[in-house]
């Protein structure tokens, strides 16, 4: 029943969602939604550079996202502008430069929509392997750094004073974000990566009693949204990224309904209607 490409998209999407869950929780807890957005938008610049210099797409997107986040940290230290304004400048200018560069390169044919909003047809077996390998690496790093990450989210000062090196945790977290953006780009698209990070985490909040529980639940809710969204995308011939985000949004709205049912039923058993 399932075509090969669809199976690949499902596997890839679930891999991305499982990885995005815990990172998305940190994005929500640390109020870094706009930061994540900025890194994601810079991915288009990475795409353009990869085409221009014939570099590996993934490596170039990852590298640009890292450079942009380092630049952001540097500019924030100088405190000439508020973080908010800096993010606004970097977010839109990297996106714009990316678009301009792509437009200049008349010799390459590029499906811009696929990069911006995701394309399930584009997922190759190699991509699936890459997403799962990268995703597992990200999850392993998150588990390894879990305590310093949570502690420095609650208080940088306490984490620093009590020897957990929050600076290192923050740096690694940034690298992980860049990696997730690079591997998630194909499936959800540049414009919507932050949604896949934030919406499942926000949905999981209400049903969680601990940071750990919220991270796991966000992964599961994200995976559910991916499955529902991809089926929707296949059925209605809609772009995969927006379909996944709409599915995630539906789960989020359901999670806001007054609780009358057992906790987990509301979160897990809804949404998939093939």
């Amino acid at each position, binding site marked *: 029943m399932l075509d090969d490409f669809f199976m690949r998209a499902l596997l890839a999407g679930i891999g991305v969602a499982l990885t995005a869950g815990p990172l998305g929780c940190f994005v929500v807890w*640390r109020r870094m939604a706009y930061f994540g957005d900025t890194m994601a938008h810079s991915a288009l610049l990475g795409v353009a550079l990869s085409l221009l210099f014939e570099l590996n797409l993934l490596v170039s997107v990852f590298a640009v996202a890292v450079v942009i986040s380092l630049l952001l940290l540097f500019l924030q230290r100088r405190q000439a502008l508020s973080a908010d304004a800096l993010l606004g400048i970097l977010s839109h200018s990297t996106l714009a430069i990316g678009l301009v560069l792509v437009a200049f390169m008349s010799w390459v044919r590029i499906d811009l929509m696929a990069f911006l909003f995701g394309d399930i047809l584009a997922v190759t077996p190699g991509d699936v392997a890459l997403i799962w390998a990268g995703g597992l690496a990200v999850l392993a790093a998150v588990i390894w750094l879990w*305590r310093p990450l949570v502690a420095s989210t*609650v208080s940088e*000062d*306490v*984490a620093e*004073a*009590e020897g957990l090196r929050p600076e290192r945790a923050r740096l690694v977290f940034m690298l992980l974000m860049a990696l997730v953006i690079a591997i998630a780009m194909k499936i959800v698209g540049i414009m919507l990566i932050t949604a896949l990070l934030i919406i499942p985490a926000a949905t999981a*909040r209400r049903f969680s009693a*601990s940071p750990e529980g919220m991270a796991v639940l966000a992964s599961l809710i994200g995976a559910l949204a991916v499955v529902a969204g991809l089926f929707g995308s296949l059925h209605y011939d809609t772009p995969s990224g927006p379909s996944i985000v709409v599915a995630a949004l539906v789960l989020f709205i359901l999670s806001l309904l007054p609780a009358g049912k057992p906790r987990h039923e509301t979160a897990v058993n809804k949404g998939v209607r093939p």
Partner: protein
Amino acid sequence: MLMTNKGASSDRRHLVELKNAGLRRDGRWLVRGVDLTIASGEILTLIGPNGAGKSTTAKMVTGVLRPNEGAVERSHDMRIGYVPQKLSIDWTMPLSVRRLMRLTGRLSDADLLDALEATGIPHLVDAEVRHLSGGEFQRALLARAIARRPDLLVLDEPVQGVDFAGETALYDLIRQIRDTTGCGILLISHDLHMVMAGTDTVICLNGHVCCRGTPETVSRSEDYQRLFGGAARGLAVYSHRHDHTHLPDGRVLHGDGSITDHCYPDDGHHDHHHEDHSRHGHDHHHDHGHDRKGREGEARDA
């Protein structure tokens, strides 16, 4: 009862030393020329007005901030327990008191409950942190810091938001932790009345070290008097003499065994805000300092 891994008898070692430490931000010195040492078993108290650099100094001690001039020497393998002045937890993070207690390290359930017991909130172990009152939150933070069995406890206004009765109990607890574990304590407060209790050294800070010494010396120094003005005048050095006990029926049991309806005017009180009579409900009049030192201070000022 609590934390007996290091006996009070352990030899005193220097935990932290600041040498002429100063920190500058945006071309302005937040604090400068701070010399201090904290040894194990010692309580060092920083007092001073807002913006005096108390928290900045504490952050140089804990290593959160690096001084722009001077030096910090910190004993390696020193375990720090830190209660910061400000801590806001985003409500989107589900965090129970139990999880907060394990924020920076592993902790057995028994130790966790012991520490909460000591700060008086064992019943809140499974409460969500964001539902705690200000005072309860401070108690949870203090419990978290002491449960780590630190070598150095850094407490930045640890009793903010705690009610009067609770304040005394928590200050007693802080002293008791020092006595039983032999850890060093850096305490910050602008609660002048309580600060002096059991403190070995007081440093009065106002961008620089104004004066230092035993609580008695500092409270008599002119710098201190000038800095704290009216609040310092007539202020007793708080010595916590438990010479009477308030019985459940409201009567008072005195040290000599007699029982009366009220405290004697000369009793060592649990409540130390004598210049502010509206804040407590004693129906007798206090027109005197609380112990001899306070009275001397008053007399000198008059």
